[in-house]
């Protein structure tokens, strides 16, 4: 289990993480979501003991990371920043790490096979493509076969095939019962891999819930009605006390009534309709709405996203 307690990190006057508290439970993937500059990487570096908190602390299985005995066997971390000597070969990078924590050297080849880097084992890190470098970072995290994983934007820079591969890998690792915290600034990515969500913006906690709950709570869903009898449908709805508005494409949108309620009303009044359907704002939009106030670098010239991209 990973815990963060009242964590604050300031860089001069700027606050990167602000009184942040949360827990990451075992056996599931917890998504750590926030726009650029929200403080995700900083939080992970503090948990790892790489960076000193201004106040508060992070714990792994009840202990600060620097106090862990052979930490690579307990926590695997994939960090955003470069952490490999460009002149050292892939194999030797991992072999050194294995030595440091008394991990058998046979794990190096096993891990290379796991991430698909066997063929470039002797290659120097400087010669790796972006995707291969990402895989090497993951190999370092998985080397000690740790029960806890901290992955900072692992899909960044990967091609679609690489992204699919990593999603599968993360799910497999979670199915093995590990505690996984994976950060992203893409809600859609999290919806595919995570079952729990921690959302932060400007270093502050904005949401800490299951993904289903987050979707239910944050996607403003509505019932969409397409009909040749606009006036009658409106009258029927208004008479029943249901609020209706005109959607961007001329369809009627009903908020605050279920699909069943709307369907029954229409059926009772024998109105012709071409479509009655449930629609929801995309997850990405829900996420942006939630973090809208905390986005650090926003283009103030216009809305953060164009209206009318519902569904």
């Amino acid at each position: 289990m990973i815990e963060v307690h009242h964590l604050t990190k300031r860089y001069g006057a700027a606050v990167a993480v602000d009184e942040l508290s949360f827990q990451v439970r075992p056996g599931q993937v917890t998504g750590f979501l926030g726009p650029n500059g929200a403080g995700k990487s900083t939080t992970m570096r503090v948990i790892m003991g790489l960076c000193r908190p201004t106040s508060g602390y992070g714990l792994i299985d009840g202990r600060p990371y620097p106090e862990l005995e052979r930490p690579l066997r307990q926590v695997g971390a994939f960090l955003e920043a470069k952490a490999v000597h460009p002149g050292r070969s892939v194999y030797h990078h991992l072999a050194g790490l294995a030595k440091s924590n008394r991990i058998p050297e046979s794990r190096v080849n096993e891990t290379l096979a796991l991430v698909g880097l066997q063929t470039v084992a002797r290659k120097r890190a400087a010669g790796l493509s972006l995707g291969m470098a990402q895989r090497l970072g993951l190999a370092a995290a998985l080397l000690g076969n740790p029960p806890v994983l901290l992955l900072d934007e692992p899909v960044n820079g990967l091609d679609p095939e690489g992204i699919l591969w990593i999603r599968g890998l993360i799910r497999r690792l979670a199915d093995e019962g590990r505690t996984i915290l994976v950060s992203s600034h893409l809600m859609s990515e999290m919806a595919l891999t995570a079952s729990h969500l921690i959302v932060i913006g400007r270093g502050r906690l904005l949401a800490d819930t299951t993904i289903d709950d987050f979707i239910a709570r944050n996607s403003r869903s509505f019932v969409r009605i397409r009909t040749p009898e606009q006036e009658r449908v409106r009258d029927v709805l208004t008479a029943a006390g249901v609020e209706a508005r005109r959607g961007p494409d001329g369809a009627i949108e009903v908020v605050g009534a279920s699909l069943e309620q709307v369907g029954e009303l229409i059926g009772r009044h024998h109105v012709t309709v071409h479509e009655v359907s449930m629609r929801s704002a995309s997850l990405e939009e829900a996420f942006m709405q939630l973090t809208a106030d905390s986005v650090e670098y926003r283009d103030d010239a216009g809305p953060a996203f164009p209206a009318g991209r519902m569904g």
Partner: protein
Amino acid sequence: MSALSSAVSFEMTKARTVRSTVWSLIFCFLVSVAIALLFGWVLRGAYDDMSPEGKAGFDPVASGYNGLRLGMIALVVFGVVLVGSEFSTGTIRSSLAAVPDRGRFYAAKIITGTTIALAVSVITTFATFFAAQTAIGSARNASITDQGALQATMGAIIYMTLLCTFSMGVAAVLRSPALSLGILVPLFFMVSEILNNLPGVQKVAQFLPDAAGQIMMRGDPPESTVLNGWTGVGLLTLWTAAALFAGYAGLRRWDG
């Protein structure tokens, strides 16, 4: 203790799997021996043309160790690169993830670097001695069993090793190999040399780390210095301890 030993074998692996560190050591050896040979060969020819005072003051041991000064630059490069590249390449993040106790990480790094520097210094110094004396020729060369020869050799080994360790401490403070070398190389091999040849400043300049250590390398200490071989070693040791401590304080504050 076992935690420290695995941290040391981690550092050993890192030191020998990068070209720059390996090459700086090979270079240290090659350049020292090559210059010793060249210098000795030149001396062999030039001896007859020397003034009588020159002949009287001729110290084949000290002359033979002239080449070590250049080899030492390579050893300083080794120490600086070993420590500084952790910061410049970001490797320190994976190193501290593996060995999060910063004191242990630092101790392992310094032990590793110093051990390697000592081994290379021993090999280089003895090889340099025999190369130089062979080149000078049997007519006037020194034997290792001569009075003071072994002591000067030990002095040279200690000097080279401590200078490398000193440089590791400085690199941990400055965190940039380029900046560290930019300061250390001119300091050791130019500024200190110049200051130690200016009559007024010399009294103070002999206390600079490399000048203090260098006294050990001479068979008999020069009249002009306050320090002798042993106080010179002591002073260089103090300099090294101070640099190591400053490096440790810097590493504790590192925030990445």
